[in-house]
């Protein structure tokens, strides 16, 4: 287990929760986008959001 204080644990809880929302949105937006550049942005943003979540989850193990 990581050495975390209460404040750090709450920051992780809050941020990872927001990251989950971002992942859901980027999935939907990448499917709905019409402009190719916009679609490409959301596809990349989706991958980034997923990687960020995994990185932060590692602090909870």
């Amino acid at each position, binding site marked *: 287990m*990581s*050495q*975390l*204080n209460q*404040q*750090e644990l709450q*920051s*992780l809880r*809050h*941020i990872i929760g*927001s990251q989950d929302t*971002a992942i859901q*949105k*980027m999935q939907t*937006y990448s499917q*709905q*986008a*019409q*402009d190719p*550049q*916009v679609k490409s*942005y*959301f596809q990349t*943003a989706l991958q*980034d959001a997923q990687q*960020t979540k995994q*990185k*932060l989850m590692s*602090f909870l193990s």
Partner: protein
Amino acid sequence: MNDKVMINDALSMVKTGITTYTTAITECSNPTLRSAFQQIRNSSETGQFDLYHLAQNKGFYTPAAQATDNEIMQVKNQLSNG
């Protein structure tokens, strides 16, 4: 939902995210976690500028108008008399 709405929502999310990470960094003692937050914030800031340019190029976002020389001089004068 059209592209403009989705891009502006993304801009808003990234802006909020950067603020959230900055707050978390200032409240963080664990050096490894603090460094991870800093890395994520830095890449978010870089990505935000790319997204901002995309939004501007597509006509989805209009930045504030340029300040005039007179307006800048007025503020400078106010702050110089303090």
